[in-house]
């Protein structure tokens, strides 16, 4: 009994000392330890490499990488506890907008670092924060793109050429279907994968400023998204027999094994597909949404932005790391490893897979992800998923409107 009690006391004491250990961030050897919070599990290896390089250059700074699952929820919980990490590498979406409005991030506007970034991406993240708070609270770093990925071998087998209008695109899908093959491999069990097509369609049909207009009462889903819903319903007709039953991971494998000709995904899926089949030849093109090739823009968003906690104790060191990351050489290394695109001026993705969308980046035929501007609590992807099952357009569009307004009113 006494033995057990001592063991219990020991355990308590050890737990307490562990807890105490967490709170001191100045290590015994005089090094400053910074915490880098990342929301992407895919980039852990890349970050580890870059951090090792940075630590070699700055021996008195240590960077601790933290990339938990459900990162956005974790970050919001830490915000409620006033325990934000020193450095954050997060996506340019509604969560960033909330953090910006909460006034907890460093303002980079007017700084030298801000000038290194392509202005269109700065606009994109500023619009996320909204007009209530002036400032640029994060530096867009890596960007992504929504594309149609295609299997080059199958593409040639069916005698197809890259479509530039919606009608040509549907004709290609029809041709593949008539030949008895699967045109598009949908993975709609994961609701978010439906938003790839939705965003390409929405951005090009309803326009980039839909969210602002909607909040001002000048636009609505019923009025502006009718065509989008019709085209979504058309696309789903060219799927496989179990569109709703396959998840993203299985879809990557199926597409890599030649189960379909087209795959509607972002550039982030390409490393995963190549992992499943390293010899596969892939191509990409922006989804041609309208029948005017001039009007069709590529949907690209800020996948990673770097930001610093306004109240960190080690701002100087944190800024040093951000400067290191924003260096052209580092930025190039990041996008090469991640198969992403860079927001840093003068850094381009040269991987031959992306030949089909390279032109969009050079000419600036780019538009942002519409759903990044939707209110976070509305759960748009599940509503879209439901629509693709039930195909009741009027009811669905009305529900999108009412859910949006309901969340805004809370």
């Amino acid at each position, binding site marked *: 009994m006494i033995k057990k009690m001592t063991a219990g006391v020991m355990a308590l004491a050890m737990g307490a000392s562990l807890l105490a250990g967490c709170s001191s961030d100045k290590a015994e050897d005089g090094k400053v330890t910074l915490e880098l919070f990342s929301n992407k599990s895919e980039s852990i290896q890349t970050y580890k490499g870059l951090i090792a390089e940075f630590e070699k250059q700055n021996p008195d700074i240590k960077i601790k990488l933290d990339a938990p699952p459900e990162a956005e929820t974790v970050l919001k919980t830490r915000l409620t506890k006033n325990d934000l990490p020193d450095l954050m590498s997060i996506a340019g979406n509604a969560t960033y907008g*909330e953090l910006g409005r909460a006034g907890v991030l460093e303002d980079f506007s007017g700084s030298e670092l801000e000038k290194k970034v392509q202005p269109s991406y700065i606009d994109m993240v500023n619009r996320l924060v909204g007009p209530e708070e002036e400032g640029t609270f994060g530096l867009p770093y890596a960007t992504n793109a929504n594309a149609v990925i295609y299997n080059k071998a199958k593409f040639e087998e069916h005698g197809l050429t890259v479509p530039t209008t919606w009608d040509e695109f549907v004709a290609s899908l029809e041709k593949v279907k008539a030949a008895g093959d699967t045109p598009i491999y949908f993975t709609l*069990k994961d609701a978010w994968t439906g938003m790839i097509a939705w965003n390409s369609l929405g951005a090009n049909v309803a326009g980039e400023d839909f969210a602002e207009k909607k909040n001002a009462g000048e636009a609505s889903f019923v009025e502006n998204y009718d065509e989008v819903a019709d085209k979504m319903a058309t696309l789903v007709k060219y799927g496989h027999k179990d*569109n*709703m039953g*396959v*998840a993203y991971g299985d879809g990557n494998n199926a597409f890599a094994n030649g189960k379909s000709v087209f795959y509607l995904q972002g550039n982030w899926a390409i490393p995963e597909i190549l992992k499943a089949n390293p010899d596969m030849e892939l191509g990409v093109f922006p989804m041609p949404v309208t029948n005017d090739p001039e009007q069709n823009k590529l949907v690209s968003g800020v996948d990673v932005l770097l930001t610093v906690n306004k109240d960190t104790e080690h701002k100087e060191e944190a800024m040093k790391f951000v400067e290191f990351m924003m260096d052209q050489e580092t930025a190039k290394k990041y996008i090469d490893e991640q198969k992403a695109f860079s927001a840093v001026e003068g850094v381009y993705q040269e991987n031959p897979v992306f030949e089909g969308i390279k032109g969009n980046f050079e000419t600036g035929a780019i538009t942002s992800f519409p759903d990044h501007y939707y209110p976070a609590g509305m759960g748009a992807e*599940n*509503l879209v998923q439901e629509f693709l099952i039930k195909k009741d357009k009027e009811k669905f569009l009305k529900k999108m409107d009412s859910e949006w307004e309901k969340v805004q009113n809370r």
Partner: protein
Amino acid sequence: MNKKSNVFLVIAIPAFILFFIFHTYPALQGIFYSFTDWKGYGDWNFVGLKNYLNVFDDGRAGDAYLFTFKFAIVSTILVNIISLAVAIGLNSKIKFHKTLRAIYFLPYILSILIVGFIFNFIFAHFLPQLGDALGWEFLSRNILGNPDLAWLGIVLVAVWQAVSFNTILYLAGLVTISEDLYEAASIDGAGVWTKFWRITFPLIAPFFTINMVLSLKNFLMVFDQIVALTGGGPGKSTESISLLIYRGGFEGGEFAYQSANAVIYFIVIIIFSVIQLKFLNKREVEN
């Protein structure tokens, strides 16, 4: 006497303090914030009963309530029938009954998330292949992708896992019944069925009560199984109330609103548990 009660006090107080700090205090905080417009951080104002009125107006919450109750009632009934049957089987003098008891308890030891991911694989790969091979149309697609059937997939997983714990409780009840009663009944010429309804079932009534109440309460709070299997989809057809509260509160920035939803749900669960206890206790006494 006095000394004895002091000892009990010393034993009870640490537990009470821990319970209060980690359970009661956060719950009270939640109730407090349900009357505000707090987003989880930053400033807030009192908004009175606005959040509560909005919950009653919220179609999404209504759907979640319907799904959760449908799921919980079906699962509770199935779990209790199956686990009672399994317990009776394991209580009889069959070979290896100790080994079998251990095997039947295994699902309870596994984490719900792991079980969910394994079943996810079975639903996505194994069952459709089986359906194709047998030519059964309804099985050849992933049932979790069908809004009308997905909830049955979740019921299957939840019941498979929950049966083990309820079986243990029923087994504990069955061993309290004296063998003499069955012998006497046999002499009087009672069949297996009569023995079950006249001896077994009445004598394990307290265990039946606790199993019904516990499983209904657990199934009403279903969360892990859904996260692992469907994430609330397809559409919102399998969104349970716990999932809705978590999603809206932490991902959607509706902390205060979903706190109000949680308070309402807390009251609903209490009401249901009390009704169940009243009803089933009465039945125990009558027997």
